[in-house]
Protein backbone atom coordinates (compact mmCIF):
# COMPACT_ATOMS: atom_id res chain seq x y z
CA UNK A 1 0.00 0.00 0.00
CA UNK A 2 1.28 3.41 -0.89
CA UNK A 3 1.00 5.69 2.09
CA UNK A 4 2.54 8.81 0.58
CA UNK A 5 0.22 11.77 0.94
CA UNK A 6 0.51 12.37 -2.78
CA UNK A 7 -1.30 9.12 -3.34
CA UNK A 8 -4.18 9.76 -0.92
CA UNK A 9 -7.59 9.44 -2.47
CA UNK A 10 -6.28 8.49 -5.84
CA UNK A 11 -7.09 5.47 -8.02
CA UNK A 12 -4.60 2.63 -7.56
CA UNK A 13 -1.92 2.61 -10.21
CA UNK A 14 -1.84 -1.19 -10.39
CA UNK A 15 -5.49 -1.26 -11.39
CA UNK A 16 -6.09 2.02 -13.21
CA UNK A 17 -2.62 2.74 -14.61
CA UNK A 18 -0.42 5.72 -13.85
CA UNK A 19 -2.30 8.70 -12.53
CA UNK A 20 -2.43 11.69 -14.81
CA UNK A 21 -1.58 14.51 -12.52
CA UNK A 22 -1.22 17.12 -15.19
CA UNK A 23 -4.17 19.14 -13.97
CA UNK A 24 -2.52 19.57 -10.57
CA UNK A 25 0.57 21.24 -11.89
CA UNK A 26 0.98 24.78 -10.81
CA UNK A 27 3.72 25.48 -13.30
CA UNK A 28 2.95 25.97 -16.96
CA UNK A 29 0.81 28.70 -18.45
CA UNK A 30 -1.03 30.98 -16.07
CA UNK A 31 -4.76 30.61 -16.31
CA UNK A 32 -7.10 33.54 -16.40
CA UNK A 33 -10.81 34.15 -16.70
CA UNK A 34 -11.62 33.26 -20.28
CA UNK A 35 -15.36 33.61 -19.88
CA UNK A 36 -17.67 34.82 -17.15
CA UNK A 37 -19.34 32.25 -14.89
CA UNK A 38 -21.81 33.72 -12.43
CA UNK A 39 -23.09 36.90 -14.00
CA UNK A 40 -25.17 39.95 -13.25
CA UNK A 41 -27.22 41.51 -16.02
CA UNK A 42 -27.90 45.18 -16.83
CA UNK A 43 -26.91 48.24 -14.85
CA UNK A 44 -28.65 51.46 -15.87
CA UNK A 45 -28.06 55.07 -14.88
CA UNK A 46 -29.21 58.54 -15.87
CA UNK A 47 -28.06 62.03 -14.92
CA UNK A 48 -30.46 64.67 -13.63
CA UNK A 49 -30.10 68.27 -12.68
CA UNK A 50 -28.30 67.78 -9.41
CA UNK A 51 -27.06 64.24 -9.48
CA UNK A 52 -27.26 60.76 -10.95
CA UNK A 53 -29.63 57.80 -10.45
CA UNK A 54 -28.39 54.25 -10.94
CA UNK A 55 -30.13 50.88 -10.67
CA UNK A 56 -29.35 47.17 -11.05
CA UNK A 57 -31.34 44.09 -10.06
CA UNK A 58 -30.25 41.74 -7.27
CA UNK A 59 -29.81 38.61 -9.39
CA UNK A 60 -26.65 36.65 -10.09
CA UNK A 61 -27.23 34.04 -12.80
CA UNK A 62 -25.31 30.83 -13.48
CA UNK A 63 -25.97 30.52 -17.18
CA UNK A 64 -29.76 30.36 -17.40
CA UNK A 65 -30.09 29.38 -13.73
CA UNK A 66 -31.20 32.16 -11.39
CA UNK A 67 -28.47 31.13 -8.91
CA UNK A 68 -28.25 33.92 -6.30
CA UNK A 69 -31.23 36.21 -5.80
CA UNK A 70 -29.85 38.60 -3.19
CA UNK A 71 -26.65 39.95 -4.70
CA UNK A 72 -26.06 43.69 -4.38
CA UNK A 73 -24.41 45.02 -7.53
CA UNK A 74 -24.30 48.72 -6.63
CA UNK A 75 -21.71 49.93 -4.15
CA UNK A 76 -21.08 53.42 -2.84
CA UNK A 77 -17.55 54.77 -2.74
CA UNK A 78 -16.60 57.23 0.03
CA UNK A 79 -20.26 58.33 0.15
CA UNK A 80 -19.61 60.51 -2.90
CA UNK A 81 -19.83 58.05 -5.82
CA UNK A 82 -21.67 54.90 -6.85
CA UNK A 83 -20.18 52.03 -8.78
CA UNK A 84 -22.48 49.57 -10.59
CA UNK A 85 -21.23 46.23 -11.89
CA UNK A 86 -22.48 44.12 -14.77
CA UNK A 87 -20.83 40.84 -15.78
CA UNK A 88 -18.89 38.34 -13.70
CA UNK A 89 -19.83 38.41 -10.02
CA UNK A 90 -16.56 37.02 -8.66
CA UNK A 91 -14.62 39.70 -10.53
CA UNK A 92 -17.07 42.23 -9.10
CA UNK A 93 -16.33 40.99 -5.59
CA UNK A 94 -12.61 41.24 -6.26
CA UNK A 95 -13.05 44.82 -7.41
CA UNK A 96 -15.24 45.51 -4.39
CA UNK A 97 -12.46 44.42 -2.04
CA UNK A 98 -9.97 46.43 -4.04
CA UNK A 99 -12.13 49.55 -3.85
CA UNK A 100 -12.46 49.10 -0.08
CA UNK A 101 -8.69 49.24 0.18
CA UNK A 102 -8.55 52.29 -2.05
CA UNK A 103 -11.21 54.04 0.03
CA UNK A 104 -9.33 53.34 3.26
CA UNK A 105 -6.04 54.64 1.85
CA UNK A 106 -7.79 57.70 0.54
CA UNK A 107 -9.46 58.39 3.88
CA UNK A 108 -6.12 58.25 5.67
CA UNK A 109 -4.64 60.63 3.15
CA UNK A 110 -7.48 63.05 3.69
CA UNK A 111 -7.05 62.88 7.44
CA UNK A 112 -3.40 63.95 7.23
CA UNK A 113 -4.14 66.84 4.89
CA UNK A 114 -6.85 68.30 7.06
CA UNK A 115 -4.51 68.37 10.04
CA UNK A 116 -2.16 70.56 8.04
CA UNK A 117 -0.87 73.55 9.90
CA UNK A 118 -1.07 76.20 7.23
CA UNK A 119 -4.32 75.32 5.53
CA UNK A 120 -6.34 78.13 7.02
CA UNK A 121 -10.05 78.75 7.29
CA UNK A 122 -9.87 79.62 3.61
CA UNK A 123 -10.80 76.00 3.14
CA UNK A 124 -14.35 76.97 3.82
CA UNK A 125 -14.76 78.85 0.59
CA UNK A 126 -12.73 76.35 -1.38
CA UNK A 127 -14.77 73.58 0.13
CA UNK A 128 -17.68 75.10 -1.72
CA UNK A 129 -15.80 74.76 -4.97
CA UNK A 130 -15.27 71.04 -4.62
CA UNK A 131 -18.30 69.48 -3.04
CA UNK A 132 -16.43 66.31 -2.12
CA UNK A 133 -14.36 66.73 1.01
CA UNK A 134 -10.92 68.02 0.24
CA UNK A 135 -8.46 65.60 -1.27
CA UNK A 136 -10.90 62.75 -1.69
CA UNK A 137 -11.25 60.88 -4.95
CA UNK A 138 -14.31 62.06 -6.82
CA UNK A 139 -16.24 59.96 -9.33
CA UNK A 140 -14.18 61.21 -12.27
CA UNK A 141 -10.94 60.27 -10.48
CA UNK A 142 -12.36 56.89 -9.51
CA UNK A 143 -13.49 56.18 -13.06
CA UNK A 144 -10.06 57.05 -14.38
CA UNK A 145 -8.49 54.72 -11.87
CA UNK A 146 -10.85 51.84 -12.71
CA UNK A 147 -10.30 52.33 -16.42
CA UNK A 148 -6.54 52.08 -15.93
CA UNK A 149 -7.05 48.94 -13.84
CA UNK A 150 -9.31 47.30 -16.45
CA UNK A 151 -7.05 48.26 -19.35
CA UNK A 152 -4.02 46.93 -17.52
CA UNK A 153 -5.76 43.58 -16.96
CA UNK A 154 -6.77 43.35 -20.62
CA UNK A 155 -3.14 44.00 -21.61
CA UNK A 156 -2.16 41.07 -19.37
CA UNK A 157 -4.80 38.90 -21.08
CA UNK A 158 -6.35 38.48 -17.63
CA UNK A 159 -9.44 40.63 -17.90
CA UNK A 160 -11.93 41.42 -15.16
CA UNK A 161 -15.10 40.37 -16.95
CA UNK A 162 -17.25 43.36 -16.08
CA UNK A 163 -18.82 46.43 -17.48
CA UNK A 164 -18.83 49.10 -14.82
CA UNK A 165 -20.78 52.33 -14.46
CA UNK A 166 -19.41 55.06 -12.20
CA UNK A 167 -21.68 57.89 -11.05
CA UNK A 168 -21.06 60.92 -8.89
CA UNK A 169 -19.49 64.31 -9.44
CA UNK A 170 -16.43 65.63 -11.22
CA UNK A 171 -14.10 68.23 -9.75
CA UNK A 172 -16.29 71.10 -10.91
CA UNK A 173 -19.39 69.78 -9.10
CA UNK A 174 -21.14 68.76 -12.30
CA UNK A 175 -22.90 65.36 -12.28
CA UNK A 176 -20.61 62.67 -13.68
CA UNK A 177 -21.52 59.36 -15.28
CA UNK A 178 -19.18 57.11 -17.23
CA UNK A 179 -18.57 53.51 -18.14
CA UNK A 180 -15.59 51.19 -18.43
CA UNK A 181 -15.63 47.63 -19.72
CA UNK A 182 -13.40 44.56 -19.66
CA UNK A 183 -11.20 45.92 -22.45
CA UNK A 184 -10.71 49.27 -20.78
CA UNK A 185 -12.95 51.12 -23.21
CA UNK A 186 -14.36 54.20 -21.53
CA UNK A 187 -17.18 56.53 -22.46
CA UNK A 188 -19.58 58.98 -20.92
CA UNK A 189 -23.12 60.01 -21.73
CA UNK A 190 -26.17 61.61 -20.05
CA UNK A 191 -27.60 58.10 -19.69
CA UNK A 192 -25.79 54.76 -19.78
CA UNK A 193 -26.77 51.11 -19.63
CA UNK A 194 -24.80 47.86 -19.70
CA UNK A 195 -25.68 44.53 -21.28
CA UNK A 196 -29.32 44.05 -22.21
CA UNK A 197 -30.07 47.50 -20.88
CA UNK A 198 -28.08 48.99 -23.76
CA UNK A 199 -30.74 47.60 -26.11
CA UNK A 200 -33.90 48.03 -24.02
CA UNK A 201 -33.37 50.77 -21.45
CA UNK A 202 -31.00 53.14 -23.21
CA UNK A 203 -33.53 54.16 -25.93
CA UNK A 204 -36.09 54.95 -23.23
CA UNK A 205 -33.66 56.97 -21.16
CA UNK A 206 -32.42 58.83 -24.25
CA UNK A 207 -35.97 60.04 -24.80
CA UNK A 208 -35.68 61.94 -21.52
CA UNK A 209 -32.02 62.89 -21.62
CA UNK A 210 -30.65 62.92 -25.15
CA UNK A 211 -28.19 65.68 -24.34
CA UNK A 212 -26.48 67.15 -21.28
CA UNK A 213 -28.87 70.09 -21.47
CA UNK A 214 -31.87 67.76 -21.33
CA UNK A 215 -30.39 65.96 -18.35
CA UNK A 216 -29.76 69.28 -16.60
CA UNK A 217 -33.51 69.95 -16.78
CA UNK A 218 -34.62 66.60 -15.35
CA UNK A 219 -35.74 66.63 -11.73
CA UNK A 220 -34.78 63.95 -9.30
CA UNK A 221 -38.27 62.44 -9.23
CA UNK A 222 -38.45 62.33 -13.00
CA UNK A 223 -35.09 60.61 -13.22
CA UNK A 224 -36.03 58.06 -10.56
CA UNK A 225 -39.29 57.31 -12.35
CA UNK A 226 -37.55 56.84 -15.70
CA UNK A 227 -35.10 54.42 -14.13
CA UNK A 228 -37.88 52.48 -12.38
CA UNK A 229 -39.78 52.25 -15.64
CA UNK A 230 -36.69 50.94 -17.40
CA UNK A 231 -36.18 48.31 -14.69
CA UNK A 232 -39.72 47.16 -15.35
CA UNK A 233 -39.16 46.89 -19.10
CA UNK A 234 -35.96 44.97 -18.43
CA UNK A 235 -37.79 42.55 -16.14
CA UNK A 236 -40.46 42.01 -18.78
CA UNK A 237 -38.03 41.25 -21.57
CA UNK A 238 -34.69 40.16 -20.08
CA UNK A 239 -34.90 36.52 -19.08
CA UNK A 240 -31.88 36.87 -16.77
CA UNK A 241 -33.43 39.61 -14.64
CA UNK A 242 -35.25 39.89 -11.35
CA UNK A 243 -38.03 42.05 -9.92
CA UNK A 244 -35.96 42.82 -6.80
CA UNK A 245 -33.44 45.53 -7.46
CA UNK A 246 -31.20 48.19 -5.94
CA UNK A 247 -31.50 51.86 -6.73
CA UNK A 248 -29.06 54.59 -5.73
CA UNK A 249 -29.25 58.36 -6.00
CA UNK A 250 -26.08 60.41 -5.68
CA UNK A 251 -26.32 64.14 -5.03
CA UNK A 252 -24.06 66.71 -3.43
CA UNK A 253 -25.40 65.55 -0.08
CA UNK A 254 -24.10 62.03 -0.60
CA UNK A 255 -25.33 58.63 -1.72
CA UNK A 256 -28.79 57.27 -0.93
CA UNK A 257 -28.83 53.55 -1.63
CA UNK A 258 -31.87 51.34 -1.35
CA UNK A 259 -31.06 47.66 -1.90
CA UNK A 260 -34.45 46.00 -1.62
CA UNK A 261 -36.76 47.65 -4.09
CA UNK A 262 -39.64 45.64 -5.54
CA UNK A 263 -40.97 46.33 -9.04
CA UNK A 264 -44.37 47.91 -8.68
CA UNK A 265 -47.46 47.96 -10.88
CA UNK A 266 -46.40 45.20 -13.20
CA UNK A 267 -48.80 44.39 -15.96
CA UNK A 268 -48.33 41.25 -17.98
CA UNK A 269 -51.41 41.96 -20.11
CA UNK A 270 -49.17 42.54 -23.09
CA UNK A 271 -48.02 38.93 -22.87
CA UNK A 272 -51.39 37.67 -24.11
CA UNK A 273 -50.98 39.54 -27.32
CA UNK A 274 -47.57 38.06 -28.09
CA UNK A 275 -47.81 35.65 -31.00
CA UNK A 276 -45.39 33.49 -32.86
CA UNK A 277 -43.63 31.39 -30.19
CA UNK A 278 -43.54 27.60 -29.79
CA UNK A 279 -46.65 25.63 -30.70
CA UNK A 280 -48.84 28.69 -30.60
CA UNK A 281 -50.49 29.46 -33.92
CA UNK A 282 -51.90 32.91 -34.65
Amino acid at each position, binding site marked *: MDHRPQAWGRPRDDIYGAYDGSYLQNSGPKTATQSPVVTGTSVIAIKFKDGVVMAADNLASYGSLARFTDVKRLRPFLDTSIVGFGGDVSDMQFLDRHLNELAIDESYEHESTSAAAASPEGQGEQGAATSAPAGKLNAANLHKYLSKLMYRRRNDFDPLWNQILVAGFDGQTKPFLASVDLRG*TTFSSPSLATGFGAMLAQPIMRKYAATEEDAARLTRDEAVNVVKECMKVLFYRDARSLDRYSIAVVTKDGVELSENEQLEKQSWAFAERIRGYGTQTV
Partner: protein
Amino acid sequence: MAAMFSQNPLMNGPNYSISDTPRINAPEGAREHRFDPYTDNGGSTLAIAGADFTIMAGDTRLASGYSINTRHYPKLFKIGGTTADQKDATIVLSVVGFAADGEALKERLDTICKMYRYRHGKPMSVKACAQRLSTILYQKRFFPYYAYAILGGLDEEGKGAVYSYDPVGSYEREQCRAGGAAASLIMPFLDNQVNFKNQYVPNSGEGHALQERERRPLTRSEVEVLVKDAFDGAVERHIEVGDGLQIMAITKDGIEEVMLPLKKD
Protein backbone atom coordinates in the same frame (compact mmCIF):
# COMPACT_ATOMS: atom_id res chain seq x y z
CA MET B 1 -6.40 40.44 -37.12
CA ALA B 2 -5.73 40.67 -40.79
CA ALA B 3 -8.78 42.87 -41.01
CA MET B 4 -7.16 45.61 -39.01
CA PHE B 5 -4.39 46.22 -41.50
CA SER B 6 -6.62 46.31 -44.52
CA GLN B 7 -9.42 48.62 -45.39
CA ASN B 8 -10.27 46.56 -48.44
CA PRO B 9 -13.98 45.72 -48.35
CA LEU B 10 -13.52 42.85 -50.79
CA MET B 11 -11.16 41.06 -48.43
CA ASN B 12 -13.05 41.66 -45.23
CA GLY B 13 -16.63 41.81 -46.29
CA PRO B 14 -18.59 44.94 -45.57
CA ASN B 15 -16.46 47.29 -43.56
CA TYR B 16 -18.30 46.87 -40.26
CA SER B 17 -16.56 46.26 -37.00
CA ILE B 18 -19.11 43.68 -35.94
CA SER B 19 -17.56 40.30 -35.40
CA ASP B 20 -20.67 38.17 -35.85
CA THR B 21 -20.47 38.12 -39.60
CA PRO B 22 -20.77 34.51 -40.77
CA ARG B 23 -17.56 32.54 -40.42
CA ILE B 24 -16.69 30.89 -43.64
CA ASN B 25 -13.85 28.61 -42.61
CA ALA B 26 -15.02 27.62 -39.13
CA PRO B 27 -16.12 24.00 -38.78
CA GLU B 28 -19.72 23.36 -37.83
CA GLY B 29 -20.40 24.08 -34.17
CA ALA B 30 -16.87 25.21 -33.45
CA ARG B 31 -16.80 28.21 -31.18
CA GLU B 32 -13.76 30.24 -30.43
CA HIS B 33 -13.42 30.46 -26.69
CA ARG B 34 -10.72 32.98 -26.07
CA PHE B 35 -10.61 36.53 -24.79
CA ASP B 36 -10.34 38.93 -27.67
CA PRO B 37 -8.58 42.06 -26.42
CA TYR B 38 -9.67 44.14 -29.40
CA THR B 39 -12.88 45.68 -30.64
CA ASP B 40 -13.49 48.28 -33.29
CA ASN B 41 -15.38 51.28 -32.05
CA GLY B 42 -16.00 52.70 -35.51
CA GLY B 43 -15.87 56.37 -36.30
CA SER B 44 -13.84 58.31 -38.79
CA THR B 45 -11.19 61.03 -38.82
CA LEU B 46 -9.72 63.37 -41.36
CA ALA B 47 -6.87 65.86 -41.64
CA ILE B 48 -5.94 68.38 -44.30
CA ALA B 49 -2.80 70.53 -44.36
CA GLY B 50 -2.97 74.03 -45.80
CA ALA B 51 -0.33 76.65 -46.51
CA ASP B 52 -0.32 78.06 -42.97
CA PHE B 53 -2.87 75.92 -41.15
CA THR B 54 -3.90 72.34 -40.52
CA ILE B 55 -7.50 71.28 -40.11
CA MET B 56 -8.34 68.05 -38.34
CA ALA B 57 -11.77 66.55 -37.87
CA GLY B 58 -13.47 63.49 -36.41
CA ASP B 59 -17.00 62.36 -35.70
CA THR B 60 -18.03 61.87 -32.08
CA ARG B 61 -19.89 58.56 -32.26
CA LEU B 62 -18.56 55.61 -30.27
CA ALA B 63 -20.10 52.38 -31.53
CA SER B 64 -19.71 48.73 -30.72
CA GLY B 65 -21.52 46.38 -33.03
CA TYR B 66 -24.88 47.88 -33.85
CA SER B 67 -25.01 49.81 -30.56
CA ILE B 68 -24.12 53.43 -30.09
CA ASN B 69 -22.24 53.60 -26.79
CA THR B 70 -22.26 57.38 -26.75
CA ARG B 71 -22.79 60.26 -29.13
CA HIS B 72 -20.17 62.47 -27.44
CA TYR B 73 -16.82 60.76 -27.81
CA PRO B 74 -14.05 63.09 -29.02
CA LYS B 75 -11.39 61.58 -31.31
CA LEU B 76 -9.20 64.68 -31.50
CA PHE B 77 -6.78 65.48 -28.70
CA LYS B 78 -4.48 68.40 -28.09
CA ILE B 79 -1.02 67.11 -27.26
CA GLY B 80 1.89 68.43 -25.24
CA GLY B 81 0.55 71.56 -23.56
CA THR B 82 2.19 72.71 -20.32
CA THR B 83 -0.89 72.00 -18.23
CA ALA B 84 -3.60 69.35 -18.25
CA ASP B 85 -6.08 71.68 -19.96
CA GLN B 86 -3.70 71.88 -22.96
CA LYS B 87 -4.19 75.62 -23.31
CA ASP B 88 -0.84 76.21 -25.03
CA ALA B 89 -0.71 73.00 -27.07
CA THR B 90 0.42 73.21 -30.69
CA ILE B 91 -0.09 69.63 -31.87
CA VAL B 92 -3.27 67.63 -32.38
CA LEU B 93 -3.54 63.84 -32.43
CA SER B 94 -6.54 62.03 -33.86
CA VAL B 95 -7.08 58.35 -33.14
CA VAL B 96 -9.70 55.97 -34.43
CA GLY B 97 -10.09 52.22 -34.17
CA PHE B 98 -10.14 50.59 -30.72
CA ALA B 99 -11.00 53.41 -28.36
CA ALA B 100 -9.13 52.12 -25.28
CA ASP B 101 -5.92 51.74 -27.26
CA GLY B 102 -6.46 55.17 -28.77
CA GLU B 103 -6.83 56.69 -25.32
CA ALA B 104 -3.72 54.91 -24.05
CA LEU B 105 -1.74 56.02 -27.07
CA LYS B 106 -2.82 59.62 -26.62
CA GLU B 107 -1.86 59.67 -22.95
CA ARG B 108 1.53 58.16 -23.67
CA LEU B 109 2.37 60.64 -26.36
CA ASP B 110 1.12 63.51 -24.23
CA THR B 111 3.23 62.43 -21.25
CA ILE B 112 6.31 62.15 -23.46
CA CYS B 113 5.70 65.63 -24.89
CA LYS B 114 5.25 67.01 -21.37
CA MET B 115 8.52 65.44 -20.23
CA TYR B 116 10.22 66.88 -23.31
CA ARG B 117 8.93 70.33 -22.39
CA TYR B 118 10.10 69.88 -18.80
CA ARG B 119 13.58 68.77 -19.86
CA HIS B 120 14.17 71.17 -22.72
CA GLY B 121 11.99 74.12 -21.77
CA LYS B 122 10.33 74.28 -25.16
CA PRO B 123 7.53 72.45 -26.93
CA MET B 124 8.27 69.48 -29.20
CA SER B 125 8.22 70.13 -32.95
CA VAL B 126 5.62 68.23 -34.99
CA LYS B 127 8.39 66.50 -36.86
CA ALA B 128 9.99 65.19 -33.65
CA CYS B 129 6.63 64.29 -32.19
CA ALA B 130 5.71 62.42 -35.38
CA GLN B 131 8.90 60.38 -35.27
CA ARG B 132 8.36 59.60 -31.58
CA LEU B 133 4.78 58.48 -32.20
CA SER B 134 6.03 56.03 -34.79
CA THR B 135 8.45 54.57 -32.24
CA ILE B 136 5.73 54.25 -29.64
CA LEU B 137 3.53 52.35 -32.06
CA TYR B 138 6.34 50.09 -33.24
CA GLN B 139 7.37 49.24 -29.69
CA LYS B 140 4.10 47.36 -29.50
CA ARG B 141 4.62 45.65 -32.85
CA PHE B 142 3.55 42.24 -31.56
CA PHE B 143 0.60 43.43 -29.47
CA PRO B 144 -0.27 46.54 -31.41
CA TYR B 145 -2.30 49.55 -30.45
CA TYR B 146 -5.24 49.01 -32.77
CA ALA B 147 -5.47 52.67 -33.63
CA TYR B 148 -5.16 54.63 -36.82
CA ALA B 149 -3.44 57.83 -35.77
CA ILE B 150 -3.09 61.12 -37.59
CA LEU B 151 -0.88 63.86 -36.18
CA GLY B 152 -1.37 67.47 -37.22
CA GLY B 153 0.43 70.73 -36.57
CA LEU B 154 2.62 73.37 -38.15
CA ASP B 155 6.18 72.56 -39.25
CA GLU B 156 9.29 74.65 -38.58
CA GLU B 157 8.46 76.91 -41.53
CA GLY B 158 4.90 77.45 -40.34
CA LYS B 159 3.36 75.28 -43.04
CA GLY B 160 0.56 72.87 -42.26
CA ALA B 161 1.81 69.36 -41.53
CA VAL B 162 -0.15 66.11 -41.44
CA TYR B 163 1.44 62.77 -40.52
CA SER B 164 -0.55 59.57 -40.89
CA TYR B 165 0.16 56.17 -39.34
CA ASP B 166 -0.81 52.55 -39.50
CA PRO B 167 -1.29 50.65 -36.23
CA VAL B 168 2.34 49.44 -36.08
CA GLY B 169 4.06 52.73 -36.79
CA SER B 170 4.64 53.13 -40.51
CA TYR B 171 4.17 56.80 -41.19
CA GLU B 172 4.54 59.50 -43.78
CA ARG B 173 3.87 63.19 -44.11
CA GLU B 174 0.95 63.95 -46.42
CA GLN B 175 -1.22 66.76 -47.68
CA CYS B 176 -4.36 65.07 -46.47
CA ARG B 177 -5.55 61.77 -45.00
CA ALA B 178 -8.79 60.14 -43.89
CA GLY B 179 -8.73 57.42 -41.24
CA GLY B 180 -11.09 54.91 -39.66
CA ALA B 181 -14.34 53.27 -40.65
CA ALA B 182 -15.24 55.60 -43.50
CA ALA B 183 -11.68 56.18 -44.71
CA SER B 184 -12.42 54.27 -47.89
CA LEU B 185 -15.36 56.56 -48.55
CA ILE B 186 -13.67 59.86 -47.74
CA MET B 187 -10.15 59.35 -49.11
CA PRO B 188 -11.12 59.18 -52.84
CA PHE B 189 -13.15 62.35 -52.34
CA LEU B 190 -10.12 64.04 -50.80
CA ASP B 191 -7.84 62.83 -53.59
CA ASN B 192 -10.14 64.50 -56.04
CA GLN B 193 -10.85 67.69 -54.10
CA VAL B 194 -7.53 68.39 -52.35
CA ASN B 195 -4.97 66.93 -54.70
CA PHE B 196 -7.15 67.48 -57.82
CA LYS B 197 -6.70 63.87 -58.95
CA ASN B 198 -8.55 63.03 -62.16
CA GLN B 199 -9.24 66.68 -62.83
CA TYR B 200 -8.10 67.90 -66.23
CA VAL B 201 -8.17 71.15 -68.07
CA PRO B 202 -11.22 70.99 -70.36
CA ASN B 203 -10.45 70.57 -74.10
CA SER B 204 -6.71 70.35 -73.42
CA GLY B 205 -6.32 67.19 -75.51
CA GLU B 206 -7.13 63.52 -75.82
CA GLY B 207 -5.82 60.60 -73.75
CA HIS B 208 -2.30 61.16 -72.47
CA ALA B 209 -2.25 64.61 -73.94
CA LEU B 210 -4.87 65.69 -71.41
CA GLN B 211 -3.47 68.36 -69.16
CA GLU B 212 -3.91 67.96 -65.41
CA ARG B 213 -5.57 70.76 -63.55
CA GLU B 214 -2.91 72.82 -61.85
CA ARG B 215 -2.59 72.10 -58.12
CA ARG B 216 -2.95 74.98 -55.69
CA PRO B 217 -3.17 75.02 -51.92
CA LEU B 218 -6.72 75.35 -50.62
CA THR B 219 -7.81 78.24 -48.44
CA ARG B 220 -9.02 77.65 -44.92
CA SER B 221 -12.66 78.35 -45.73
CA GLU B 222 -12.53 75.95 -48.69
CA VAL B 223 -11.11 73.23 -46.46
CA GLU B 224 -13.74 73.80 -43.79
CA VAL B 225 -16.51 73.30 -46.35
CA LEU B 226 -14.72 70.22 -47.69
CA VAL B 227 -14.50 68.65 -44.25
CA LYS B 228 -18.20 69.12 -43.56
CA ASP B 229 -19.13 67.73 -46.99
CA ALA B 230 -16.84 64.72 -46.54
CA PHE B 231 -18.46 63.82 -43.25
CA ASP B 232 -22.01 64.46 -44.44
CA GLY B 233 -21.27 61.97 -47.20
CA ALA B 234 -19.74 59.42 -44.83
CA VAL B 235 -22.64 59.68 -42.42
CA GLU B 236 -25.06 58.91 -45.23
CA ARG B 237 -23.33 55.69 -46.25
CA HIS B 238 -21.67 54.35 -43.10
CA ILE B 239 -23.59 53.25 -40.02
CA GLU B 240 -20.69 53.77 -37.62
CA VAL B 241 -20.23 57.45 -38.46
CA GLY B 242 -22.44 60.25 -37.21
CA ASP B 243 -23.78 62.25 -34.22
CA GLY B 244 -21.30 65.13 -34.03
CA LEU B 245 -18.33 66.59 -35.86
CA GLN B 246 -15.35 67.84 -33.89
CA ILE B 247 -13.08 70.15 -35.89
CA MET B 248 -9.77 71.64 -34.81
CA ALA B 249 -7.91 74.28 -36.77
CA ILE B 250 -4.23 74.68 -35.94
CA THR B 251 -2.73 78.06 -36.86
CA LYS B 252 0.16 80.13 -35.58
CA ASP B 253 -2.30 81.71 -33.13
CA GLY B 254 -3.14 78.40 -31.49
CA ILE B 255 -5.85 75.80 -31.82
CA GLU B 256 -9.50 76.64 -32.47
CA GLU B 257 -12.09 73.99 -31.77
CA VAL B 258 -15.66 73.77 -33.12
CA MET B 259 -18.41 71.22 -32.70
CA LEU B 260 -21.00 70.77 -35.45
CA PRO B 261 -23.99 68.47 -35.51
CA LEU B 262 -24.14 65.44 -37.80
CA LYS B 263 -27.09 63.13 -38.51
CA LYS B 264 -27.83 60.90 -35.52
CA ASP B 265 -29.48 58.01 -37.39
